[in-house]
């Protein structure tokens, strides 16, 4: 015993090995490829957006390009479509995220129960999560189109009229797009919330039951508080995603009819891809970025304030 203890003290705890001096540069070397790629293709481009936004820059009209100062921003403030698209973006994000959350939460609660056929139903209801925006458009366009869609079969059965499409009226186009996006958005919440549900200890529920808490009471006092952090995180991630993602609206409505479903990033994409208006597009992009950052920080701050108030 004595021999052993005199032999062991000099051996430093192995943990120390992590700080061997010749390894001081290892983490930086390991991060170098990522850092290099991110600097060239993400950070530098963000900087150059600021720069472009001060220029008139259209690749199809090179003779007209040049420094214009804040001109693009002034144009933006008096651009009705900018304000309209901003308003619509807010509406789109709030409606989508809240509906997806409600249905996703309900779905996660159902699918967390033990029942026959759970594994297969899980795989099936999660599957639209992996479907792209363009493919979602393809699928739902077949459903909404007057010649291929449900409308025709309903009209055959004497309900509604032939030749109507939900996508041609501004009001119904909005809800048609909401439904299609909901179809592939709900699984995201269901997956994240289910993951968190599974980390709740069964003992908590048993204890609550001993205390005579009913089903609803258990949900309200155990499940929801436990899910709080996951809900805050997933709604924020999804709101950012819904704000930024333009694939579905670009292909399903193209922002129409009459710009009724134009989000701000979609407006940017149309300016960049279709019109090649890089200067003005960059100014719009800057606005989108700043608005998104301010909203996200406010949301996180409110969520934290809400927690402290409890």
């Amino acid at each position, binding site marked *: 015993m004595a021999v052993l203890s005199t032999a062991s003290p000099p051996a430093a705890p*192995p943990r120390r*090995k992590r*700080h061997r001096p010749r390894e001081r540069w*290892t*983490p930086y070397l*390991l*991060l170098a*490829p*990522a850092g290099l*790629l*991110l600097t060239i*293709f*993400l950070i*530098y*481009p*963000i900087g*150059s*957006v600021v720069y*472009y936004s001060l220029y008139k820059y259209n690749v199809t009209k090179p003779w007209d390009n040049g420094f214009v100062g804040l001109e693009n921003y002034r144009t933006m403030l008096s651009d009705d479509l900018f304000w309209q698209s901003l308003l619509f973006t807010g509406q789109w994000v709030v409606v989508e995220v809240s509906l997806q959350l409600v249905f996703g939460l309900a*779905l996660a609660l*159902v699918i967390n129960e033990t*029942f026959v056929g759970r594994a297969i*139903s*899980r795989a*099936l209801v*999660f*599957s639209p999560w*992996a*479907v*792209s*925006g*363009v*493919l979602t458009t*393809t699928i*739902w366009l*077949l459903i909404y189109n007057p*010649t*291929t869609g449900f409308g025709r079969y309903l009209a055959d059965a004497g309900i509604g009229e032939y030749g109507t499409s939900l996508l041609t009226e501004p009001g119904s186009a909005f809800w048609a797009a909401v439904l299609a996006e909901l*179809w592939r958005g709900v699984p995201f919440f269901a997956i*994240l919330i289910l*993951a*968190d549900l*599974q980390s709740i200890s*069964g003992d908590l529920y*048993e204890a609550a*039951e001993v205390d005579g808490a009913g089903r609803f009471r258990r949900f309200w006092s155990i499940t929801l508080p436990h899910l709080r*952090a996951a809900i805050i995180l997933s709604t924020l991630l999804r709101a950012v995603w819904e704000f*930024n993602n333009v694939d579905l609206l*670009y*292909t399903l409505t193209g922002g129409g009819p009459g710009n009724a479903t134009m989000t701000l*990033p979609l407006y*940017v*994409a149309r300016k*960049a891809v279709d019109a090649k208006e*890089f200067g003005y597009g*960059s100014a719009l*992009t800057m606005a*989108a*970025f700043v608005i998104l950052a301010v909203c*996200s920080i406010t949301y996180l701050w409110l969520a934290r304030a809400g927690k402290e108030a409890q």
Partner: protein
Amino acid sequence: MKRRLTGSAAARQAPRWAIYVPLGAYLLFTLVPFYWILLFAFRKSGSTALVPWPLTLEHFSTVWNGAGFGVFFKNSVIIAVLTVLLTTVIALAGGYALARFRFRGKGAIMILMLCTQFVPGAMMLIPLFDIFRTTHLINTLWSIVVADAVFHLPLSIILMAGFIRNIPIELEEASWVDGCGRFRGFRMTVMPLLRPGVVAISSFAFISSWNNFLFALMFLNSQDQFTIPVGLSYMLGEYSVDFGALAAGGVVAVVPVVLVFAYVQRFLVQGLSAGGVKG
């Protein structure tokens, strides 16, 4: 499993109808759209039957040969495979650094990477177009690989760091005592346990690369470079759409992601609840 055996757990079970009714309704909402596209893809043109019978494969040959989906498919596969390799290898290195080292600037790097998640994809269109034009990568598959990988890297690194942190460091330390270096120790002890994490991260990268639309629409302009989503979007924009061919194109687009998804969805929930996100 244990929960099912305890007496009170049985009472805690929801009544059967409270599970099957909402679940059945939701399954209908999920599956009917899938059925609709399969119906049009396999049904003869001009038929209005609600079952695709007699089956036909003519739409697939139209879309694969006539509309060029054979080429689009090849392009999409090349882009997805290269993106997955690039993302996974770089995320392994970066994730390992963040999980296993303490170094100056680590906190700042983590915050910076989280911030990149807020950058709109549409914001990158203009500057990346310019970069790729000056480097002559425009209208090549590489432009999409790089743009996709970069956009997906921060989240992959953060997730990978979470997965690596969940593997006890003692295993690696034991291998160092046995004379392994960092790299060999990592390969022998961490890599085998990291398989679910690597599978999850590379599948995310595959799905998002396979589905990417905006970058491909902006950076690729000749038809022999198009990817499947771009090909689909052009079909959608045609004045008189051949719905059978469109549906067949959609089925071609969905098969690879469904296969990958069927494989990873088991890891999805487990991986996330193991702390992949919160770690």
